[in-house]
């Protein structure tokens, strides 16, 4: 089996007395889509932010491509990218200008071709010249996905990537993600509150609850282990447990 592209070991983040992520360890293999599931406040975003070097872990280590993130930030971040419903892009720039800036930032050669390819792939021709402020939320999501794809990352972190997309575009994005991982071995860490999407997309799923991993395996494994009908029921079980313990 090929060696993992990402290895998080005993990852912990405390904010004062509060432990947001508690001893989390996992790996992602080349071309694998790993789903990160958990109720609100379970620690998914904090985990992704640690993997992106935006939040410093209190304990534990992160390795990508066999390099330690704490000492090889630049080399690692050159090869990863992310998209999230929570981020934005400069509003006064056009879609295309934003992509040009990202292309320069990552030192992409053959920028014009890459920008054109990605605009076509994500069906953004119609609004490529539009000022970002005027985009609909679905178009905005496509732009942040485009900026993530543009840099040809080896690992993508996607925080609810299809949340504001209509079913048609969401379906196309899912196909694109699967296609990219087939053709280029792209690995993806994925969060979503859409359980059907999680089941469809993920090779493996990690369930977080109050910052800890409480279940891990394929969607079917997890459903079977907890004797539930589907992933949604497992989710509800963990969400209600977390809700009860914090109330």
């Amino acid at each position, binding site marked *: 089996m090929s060696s993992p592209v990402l290895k998080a070991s005993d990852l912990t983040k405390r904010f004062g007395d509060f432990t947001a992520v508690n001893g989390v360890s996992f790996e992602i293999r080349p071309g694998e889509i790993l789903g990160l599931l958990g109720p609100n406040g379970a620690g998914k975003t904090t985990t992704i932010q640690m993997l*992106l070097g935006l939040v410093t872990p209190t304990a534990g280590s992160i390795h990508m491509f066999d390099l330690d993130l704490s000492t090889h930030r630049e080399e690692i971040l050159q090869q990863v990218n*992310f998209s999230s419903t929570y981020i934005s*892009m*400069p509003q*006064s720039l056009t879609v295309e200008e934003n992509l040009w800036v990202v292309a320069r930032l990552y030192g992409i050669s053959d920028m014009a071709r890459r920008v054109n390819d990605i605009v076509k792939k994500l069906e953004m021709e119609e609004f490529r010249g539009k000022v970002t402020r005027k985009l609909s939320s679905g178009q905005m999501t496509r732009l942040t996905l485009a900026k993530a794809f543009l840099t040809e990352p080896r690992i993508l972190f996607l925080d609810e990537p299809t949340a504001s997309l209509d079913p048609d575009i969401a379906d196309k994005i899912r196909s694109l993600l699967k296609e990219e991982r087939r053709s280029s071995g792209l690995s993806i860490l994925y969060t979503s509150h859409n359980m059907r999407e999680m089941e469809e997309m993920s090779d493996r799923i990690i369930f977080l609850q109050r910052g800890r991993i409480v279940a891990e395996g394929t969607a079917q494994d997890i459903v079977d282990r907890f004797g539930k009908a589907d992933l949604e029921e497992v989710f509800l079980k963990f969400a209600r447990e977390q809700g009860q313990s914090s109330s």
Partner: protein
Amino acid sequence: MKLHRITALIVRHLYLYRRSLPRIMEIFYWPFLDLVIWGFITLYLARYQSQVPGFVTFFLGALILWDMLFRAQQGITISFLEELWARNLMNLFASPLKPSEFLAATMAMSVMKVTIVSIVMSVCALLFYSYNILIVGAWLMPFVLNLVITGWIIGVFTTSLIMRFGQEAEVLAWSMVFLFQPISCVFYPMEVLPTWLQMIAMANPAAHVFEGMRTALGAGAPPIEDLAWAVGLNGALLVGVVAWFYRTVAYCKDQGLLVRVGE
């Protein structure tokens, strides 16, 4: 440092200014108003030129030089605020961009703004008041360079505070520099300050530049000592404030503030 990452940020700001009339106006608005108001005051006071020799020269020269410092500071802080307002910090800090490259790009923006404003102000002063800034002489360039660096120091300091305390601290972008104005001795010599304030002003590189300007314009003596103080203090403070910026970035990453600012 990688040049392509620095130019990416510069290009991003140029795109922004290209399409935004209010932003372009903002660069010229204050310097122009200053020049109009203080220009007329100076013209009025020039009637008493005999009592205060060289008054006009001091005053308008000081005004233009102070605006260069102010623009240099704004060039840094506003560039950061633009990223904060655009909720773009996460995109930048999760990219390979280094804090040093971020600072270098904001400093380049600052130099561009200072250059444009200086040219506009100098030309206006010449047209409206027949005042030629070049009478400051050969010392003008080292003075300007030092003031730009002092502007950077205040700019990086202010940026760190906004990063640390979030959007509530945004007002510092415009107000912080005026805290330094009284102790920069822009329009009056350092000796008019009370002794305790003189001690503080001594640590401010800008105060030495303005002292130097008065020396150069007044007695015509070379302001070597003033310049040496300005250069030494600027060097030390720039290193200090950049170290402080790095510490602030580390602190914000530890507290998870980088991703929260702007919300």
